[in-house]
C-alpha cells in the first residue's frame, strides 16, 4: 500500500505539471538532478524520490559461478543501524549458502583494532563492515590483504587500498542533494536552513557540500547556516542547542540533520522552546525513530537508508572477488527515497526500498 500511496502522492506534489520522473538509480538520477533546476525542479525531484524505487542499481550479472560455503565476518558496531545491516548481510549470505559471524567491534579505538586483528587472525573468507575509518585498524587490513581476504565496507570515506569495495559511496552525493530538493520544494523556495553536522561523522561533510550545491541550484536565494556539535551530545545537549539556535535565529524555518540520530529528543526540545511550529526538519538514514516522528508529524521528512540493497551489494562485491571479477558493478549508485508522512509502511523497522530487491539480486547471482 505504501508504494501506491508514495507514487500517487508524488504526482500530486509535482506542481510543475511535468511528467513524473521515474525513481531510478545511476546516471539517469544524476541527469535528472542536473536537468531540473529552480524550485520547480526541486519539486519534480522530490516527487521522484517520494516514489518507490524500482531498481537496485546494479545491472551487471556475476559471470562466474559463485562458490558457496564461504565464511564471512560482519563487524558489528552494536548500534541500531549496524544491527540492521548485520541482519541484511545474513539474509544476503544465506541466498549464496554462506555463513556470517557477527563480530562485536566495541567502541574505543583499542577495542576496534583488537576486533579487527582477531578477525585478521581468523579463518574468514571475507569481511563486511560499516562506517569505521580504517586508520584505526590499518595493520589488520594489511594482514587481510596479504591473506587475500576481501573487505567490503559501506558508509565510510576511506582510501585504504586494502579495502576491496566501498559500496554506496557513489550514493552519498545524491543523498546530499535529496536534502536540498526536499527543503527547496517543501518551502517553495523560501527556506532558511540550519545544517547540523558533527565532525565525529566524516561522511556528513560530503552530504553538506552536496546539500549546498543542491540549494544553489534549486533555491539560490535560500540561506544556509551550519553548526557542528560533538556526537557525544546526541540526546542530551544537542537538541537543546539546536532549539536555542532556532529561537535566536527567528528566520530559520528548516533544519537539516547530518544524521537522523541527531533527532533524538529534538521534537521535544523544539516544543519546549516554543518553536516546534515554525520549523521543520529532515535527516538522513530514517531510523525507525525518525520514521515514527515523520508519521507523527514531528519530523518533516527522512531520507531512507537502503540498508538491504547496500548489504546485498557488499555481498555482491565479495562474490565478484571470489570469482575473480571486477567489483566495479557493486559500487553502483543505490536506490534513493525520501520518506514523508505518506509513503511509510512500517515505522518500527528498517525496510528495503525496492520491493523485489531480493529477486533482482538473485537474478544477478544466477540463483
Amino acid at each position, binding site marked *: 500500500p505504501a508504494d501506491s500511496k508514495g507514487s500517487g502522492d508524488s504526482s500530486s506534489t509535482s506542481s510543475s505539471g511535468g511528467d513524473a520522473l521515474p525513481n531510478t538509480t545511476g546516471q539517469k538520477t544524476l541527469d535528472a538532478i542536473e536537468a531540473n533546476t529552480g524550485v520547480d525542479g526541486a519539486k519534480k525531484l522530490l516527487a521522484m524520490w517520494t516514489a518507490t524505487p524500482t531498481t537496485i542499481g546494479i545491472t551487471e550479472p556475476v559471470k562466474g559461478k559463485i562458490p558457496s560455503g564461504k565464511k564471512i565476518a560482519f563487524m558489528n558496531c*552494536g548500534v541500531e543501524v549496524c*544491527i540492521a545491516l548485520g541482519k541484511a548481510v545474513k539474509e544476503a549470505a544465506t541466498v549464496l549458502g554462506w555463513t556470517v559471524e557477527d563480530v562485536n567491534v566495541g567502541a574505543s579505538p583499542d577495542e576496534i583494532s583488537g576486533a579487527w586483528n582477531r578477525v585478521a587472525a581468523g579463518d574468514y573468507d571475507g569481511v563486511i563492515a560499516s562506517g569505521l575509518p580504517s586508520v584505526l585498524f590499518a595493520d589488520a587490513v594489511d594482514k587481510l590483504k596479504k591473506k587475500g581476504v576481501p573487505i567490503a565496507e559501506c558508509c565510510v570515506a576511506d582510501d585504504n587500498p586494502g579495502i576491496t569495495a566501498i559500496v554506496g559511496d557513489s550514493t552519498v552525493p545524491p543523498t546530499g542533494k535529496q536534502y536540498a530538493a526536499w527543503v527547496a520544494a517543501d518551502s517553495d523556495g523560501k527556506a532558511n536552513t540550519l545544517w547540523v553536522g558533527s565532525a565525529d561523522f566524516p561522511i556528513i561533510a560530503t552530504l553538506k557540500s552536496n546539500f549546498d550545491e543542491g540549494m544553489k541550484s534549486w533555491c539560490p536565494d535560500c540561506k544556509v547556516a551550519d553548526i557542528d556539535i*560533538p556526537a557525544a551530545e546526541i540526546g*542530551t545537549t544537542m537538541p537543546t542547542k539546536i532549539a*536555542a539556535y532556532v529561537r535566536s535565529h527567528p528566520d530559520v524555518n528548516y533544519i537539516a540533520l547530518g544524521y537522523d540520530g541527531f533527532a533524538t529528543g529534538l521534537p*521535544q526540545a523544539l516544543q*519546549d*522552546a*516554543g518553536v516546534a511550529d515554525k520549523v521543520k526538519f529532515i535527516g538522513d538514514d530514517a531510523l*525507525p525513530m525518525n520514521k515514527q516522528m515523520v508519521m507523527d508529524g514531528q519530523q518533516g521528512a527522512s531520507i531512507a537508508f537502503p540498508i538491504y540493497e547496500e548489504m546485498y551489494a557488499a555481498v555482491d562485491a565479495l562474490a565478484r572477488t571470489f570469482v575473480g571479477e571486477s567489483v566495479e558493478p557493486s559500487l553502483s549508485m543505490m536506490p534513493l527515497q525520501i520518506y514523508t508522512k505518506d509513503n511509510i509502511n512500517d515505522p518500527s523497522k528498517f525496510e528495503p526500498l525496492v520491493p523485489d530487491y531480493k529477486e533482482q539480486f538473485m537474478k544477478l547471482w544466477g540463483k
Partner: protein
Amino acid sequence: MTTLTIDRRAEWKRRLSFSNLSVVYILVALVVFFGVWKTDLFLTYDTFSGMLNQNAIQALMALSLIMALSSGVFDLSIGYVMSLTSMLTAYLVSPQYGNLLPSSAIAIALAVALLAGVVNAIVVVIFKIDSFIGTLATGSIFYSAAVYVTDNVPISVGTSTIRSLGSWNVASLGAPVFVVAVVMVVLWYLMGHTPTGRAVYATGLGPEAARLAGIRTKRIQFTSLLVSALVAGVAGVLATAKFSQGSAGVGAPYLIQAFAAVFLGATLFRGSLFNAVGTVIAVIMLGTITVGLALAGVVQQWVPYAFQGLILISALGLGGLRRRPKAPTAAEVEPAPSAEVPAQPDGVPTHV
C-alpha cells in the same frame, strides 16, 4: 532584643553570603548577563519553561543521588538503571511487544528499578563491596539487561497512550517538571526536617558515631540505594514517555552532570551537605550555560565546555564546597570481618 536583632542580622548575612549561595549568585549573574546580551530572547517565559522542561530529567537523576551520597555510598549505576527502565517501559507498552497499559508497564518498570536497587544494596551493604566499584559492576549488569531486551535496538512506544504522559503539560511545563518538584520537596522535607533525614546524614558523615547513637546505618544505606534506583527508574519511565521510545543508551549521559550538580548543590544552604534544593538550582545553573550560550549564538563547540569548567571552578572555589561531604564505604560502617572496628576509629579527637 537588641542582641536578637543583631543575631538575626548576622544570621541573614551568613545565609546570604556569597560562600553560602555562590551558585545562586552565579545563576543570577548568568541570567543578567544573557538577559542583557539577548534580552528579547532570553528573558521570556518560553526560555524559562523550556529550561525547566529540558533539565527536568537531568534534575531527577541528580536528585536520585542525594540520599545515597548523604548516607556515604556512591551509586554509579543510576544511568544504567534509567536505561533499563526506559527500555522496559517501552517494551511493555509497545503494541509490538508487551502492549500493556502504561500504568501496568510503569509499575513493572519501577518494580524492576527497585530490584536493581536491591541488587546494589546487597552488593554494597551485605557483601560490603566498596560502593564506587561495586555500583560500577552492577551498572554493567543493568546495562547488560537493558541491551538484552531487544539486543540494543531502541523500542518505539508506537501508538501507546504513554505518549499522552509525554506531551501532557500545564502552562507549558511537562510532567517531568512536576515530578522533579515533588521529589525535590519530598527530599527537602525528608533530609532537612525529619529524624530519618538527619540519620542519613549522620550515617554518611560519621558511620561509627551514628551506629553508636543507635542509628541502623546498614538499613539506611540499604534504603538509600533503593531510593536512588527508584528515582532513576522514574527518570527512565519519563524519558520513554517524553521521547516516545526506550533505548539502552539513554541513561549514561546523565551520570556525570548528575554528580556535578549534586556536589555543586552541596555548596548551597547547608554547609556542604548534599541537599535537594541546592541540587536543582545547580542543574538549572548548568543548564543556563548551555541555553544561554546557544541563544547568544555562540556556535564554537569548545566554548560551552570551557565555560562550564570555569564556572564550576569559580562556584566551588569561591563558594563553600571545598570539602566534599565524604562518601566512605559501607565497609566503614560495618567493617570487614578482619577488622571490626573501622580503620579510622573516630572523627572526633579523644583529648586536647
